């Protein structure tokens, strides 16, 4: 039986954070209910079409899935189990934000088979949380975390954000130290990115340019400071027994997030819900990003053809885009996604996937990156060095053909 992952998008937040440019927005209870109905219709539509697949991981992401009434989550999971074949040991995660989680919600999650909780903590410093426009304090995070533990969740991820305005390696070290005391199984540590179209872009766009150019900055940490923050993160988490398994992810042994690894290893995944992205048998899809159109179309989901220049692809009226990844695109993705993993890519897997040795395509690039000290190969694997991880954009861009 073939395998696949399932991603379910919940695009609602109590309040939009000023740095966020993901698909999320505040919504009334009625809209949330209407959305859940639409999502369930989508789940029910796709389930029978994926009869040949075993679902190995499920990820309920957002937005803030934990903001939804617990009943909604129970119904969504019920629909998933009715429509898809879900592996008995499936990793099932849900994203929770402090300030939206209750004891009752957590017990409903348990009953629905959810095995992993990802909590958006971002910082242990209340000033930073305020600056980020988060609706919670660090204390509220602690309560959510403790509550999750009390409900028997033994696989918890904590999201942290580095590179915040005014942040230093020392101050970020303090955040890490605070959260480490809780001994979560997993850490995701991402940098704040100043994205176009957000209020943060208006405040920090010039600073972000300076940061990327290695110049002195006004509020954002300088590139040197970002470097130091990265090193502090690596050192402290390593000392505490976390293994860095991907550029931004750290886990206790056995707790790496299988769902995320699937993205880097180009597993099949079906994304359902507003604007969700899928990769199914080398076709990448994305769903309609407009909420009201999505809701409207979901009343009559039907198959059709997505017309591309070269070929028409099977799609539905919920899709906003469909693209078959060419062989060249697959090779590029194999490299620039796979090399995000600390263990890198397997030479053998490459040869099996593309029918040629990796050197036939990338000999020059591999030599060049090795020469520059950014890449190594060992025991049949090719992976970025520590410096390669630091400069991953530079290194990975080389694999575009």
């Amino acid at each position, binding site marked *: 039986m073939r395998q696949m992952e399932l*991603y379910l*998008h919940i695009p609602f937040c109590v309040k939009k954070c000023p740095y966020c440019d*993901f698909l999320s927005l505040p919504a009334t209870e009625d809209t949330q209910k209407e959305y859940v109905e639409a999502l369930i219709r989508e789940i029910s539509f796709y389930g029978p079409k994926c009869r040949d697949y075993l679902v190995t991981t499920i*990820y309920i*992401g957002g937005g803030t899935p934990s903001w939804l009434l617990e009943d909604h989550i129970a119904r969504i999971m019920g629909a998933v189990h009715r429509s898809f074949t879900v592996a008995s040991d499936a990793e099932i995660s849900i994203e929770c934000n402090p300030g939206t989680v209750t004891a009752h919600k957590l017990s409903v999650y348990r009953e629905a088979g959810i095995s992993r909780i990802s909590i958006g903590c971002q910082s242990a410093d209340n000033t930073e949380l305020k600056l980020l426009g988060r609706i919670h304090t660090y204390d509220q995070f602690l309560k959510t975390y403790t509550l999750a533990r009390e409900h028997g969740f033994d696989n918890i991820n904590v999201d942290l954000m580095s*590179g915040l305005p005014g942040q230093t390696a020392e101050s970020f070290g303090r955040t890490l130290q605070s959260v480490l005391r809780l001994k979560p199984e997993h850490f*995701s540590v*991402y*940098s*704040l*990115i100043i994205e176009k179209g957000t209020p943060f872009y208006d405040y920090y766009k010039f600073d972000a340019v300076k*940061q*990327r*150019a*290695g110049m002195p900055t006004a509020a954002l940490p300088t*590139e*040197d400071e*970002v*470097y130091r923050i*990265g090193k502090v993160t690596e050192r402290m988490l390593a000392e505490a027994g976390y293994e860095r398994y991907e*550029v*931004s992810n750290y886990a206790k042994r056995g707790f790496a997030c299988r769902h995320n690894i*699937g*993205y880097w290893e180009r597993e099949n*995944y079906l*994304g359902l819900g507003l604007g*969700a*992205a*899928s*990769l199914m048998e080398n076709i*990448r899809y*994305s769903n309609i990003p407009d909420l009201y159109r999505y809701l409207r179309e979901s009343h009559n989901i039907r198959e059709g053809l997505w017309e591309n220049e070269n070929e028409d692809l099977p799609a539905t009226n919920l899709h906003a885009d469909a693209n078959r990844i060419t062989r060249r695109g697959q090779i*590029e*993705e194999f490299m*620039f*996604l796979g090399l995000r993993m600390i263990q890198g890519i397997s030479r053998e897997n490459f040869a099996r996937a593309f029918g040629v040795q990796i050197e036939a395509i990338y000999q020059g690039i591999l030599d060049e990156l090795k020469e*520059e*000290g*950014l890449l190594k190969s060992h025991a049949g694997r090719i992976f970025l060095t520590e410096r390669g991880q*630091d*400069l*991953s*954009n*530079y290194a*990975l*861009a*080389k694999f*575009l053909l």
Partner: protein
Amino acid sequence: MSVDKSKIRNFCIIAHIDHGKSTLADRIIESTGTLTAREMQAQVLDNMELERERGITIKSQAVRIIYQAGNGEEYIFNLIDTPGHVDFNYEVSRSLAACDGAILVVDAAQGVEAQTLANVYLALDHDLDVMPVINKIDLPSAQPDEVIREIEDVIGIEAEDAPRISAKTGLNIDQVLEQIVEKIPAPSGDENAPLKALIFDALYDSYKGVIVFCRIREGSVRVGDPILMMATGAKSEVTEVGYFGAGQFIPCEELSAGMVGYLCASIKNVADTRVGDTVTNAAHPCAEPLPGYKKVNPMVYCGMYPADSARYPDLRDALEKLQINDASLHYEPETSMALGFGFRCGFLGLLHLEIIQERLEREFNLDLVTTAPGVIYKVHKTNGDVIELTNPSNLPDPAEIEYMEEPVVSAEIMVTSDYVGAIMTLCQERRGVYISMEYLEETRALIRYELPLNEIIYDFFDALKSRSRGYASFDYDLKGYERSELVKLDILINREQVDALSFIVFKDSAYERGRKMCEKLKGEIPRHLFEIPIQAAVGGKVIARETVKAMRKDVLAKCYGGDITRKRKLLEKQKEGKKRMRQIGNVEIPQEAFMSVLKLDED
């Protein structure tokens, strides 16, 4: 067929840039019915795409127009359009020499400008009758009475009955046409004397060979005549003669004294037909050529290299083609350690350079790397040799140099009195030597300076404009060579000297220029995996230094819900940035950096 000379008018239109010369030419052509309105594309005479875009005339053009005058007689007008920029002064002078009169167009809002004066003097030098016309009277800011007084006071020619027109709308064009008949003299010259014709332009046609644009001064020429170019000595036989229709050549039997037209004689090489040369009959030559011929020499040189070195042959072919119609373009192959194979090219001035560069990129689809333009220096060596230096890399060892000379121009700057101080400061900064200043009227001064050419070829125009809020105008003539303290400034990137970035500079400016150059390059060179020192050096001694810091850390975005398109775009952008780079040692330098020396005074 004999043409009544008294019914011919050979004239040109002269004006300061943007005063409406080409628009007036269009109206004249249009209103005499040479072209129907449908055939009329705006500015017929400026037919090169670039000319139209920049609003200037690069090549001379000519057109013959039949005009039915108010007195009932039919007249032949030969309108010769002249280049409108100081770079092309010699071409202008040859076009003027082909005329008997000139229409002076003055903008009713702007009044007399430096080029207006320079053009009038040039026209008077050629004994042309100058007939003023006040243009753009439809502008709200137009002050025609004021401008007429200015023409009379400043230039000293009568302008009381000058037509007040709007070339744009066509207002009062009829008055202009009538005055052409009245005020511009008919040509003179003996059609039975030996042939004496002035070449004022030439262009290459792949079927006819070189087409020579000429004004017949004396004698006549017809198909089959053997001809001789008196300066170059080239001989051939005439295969076709004719005159200029609008946008086409119309063959005729004979051209005789007083007429303007063209001749073809299976001439393969434009270099044989120099603008200003005299054509005569090889069997019955005239005694003396027409005066005023000179070989034009480039004033500004730069290196031009194909961005993609595989396109070197394409660049060579393109230059060859351009030179066919532009004898003032010089080029010879050269090699640069940094840029590979390319050409050292010579131009009449910076505008000429820019035009050629744009034509190469646009018409020949070439991606070019251009080095900083420089002038020709004379290097007097201790052994008595004199080198004309066009490429800074070829400067001999300082021990072998006795002294150096640089070209100096006499410049005339016309400016309203408010900005006299600012402009004098500018000239002073550019090592100018003050010559004189006179007030042409209460609010307007004509300032004369001598300036080293290398101080004005880069950005003098821009500086002049910005410091006078656009109120200054400028004209110059090469005065000659003067001894000067000059040094070669070298740039080292990651300790490697980059030959294409070397330039010659006045000794006392070397430190300042070097510092700015390093700063500029620091901003142009992207960060690498290692630290890159950028140094400016004179004679091996480092005088300025900047450092491009090494890259240390990328910021990492969350890759959300498996949406990898954003990640891909980011990487693609990173990769795209690499394309327009030149590899020098192990440093990648963007091609723009080689021109950056030009923009040192930007900030």
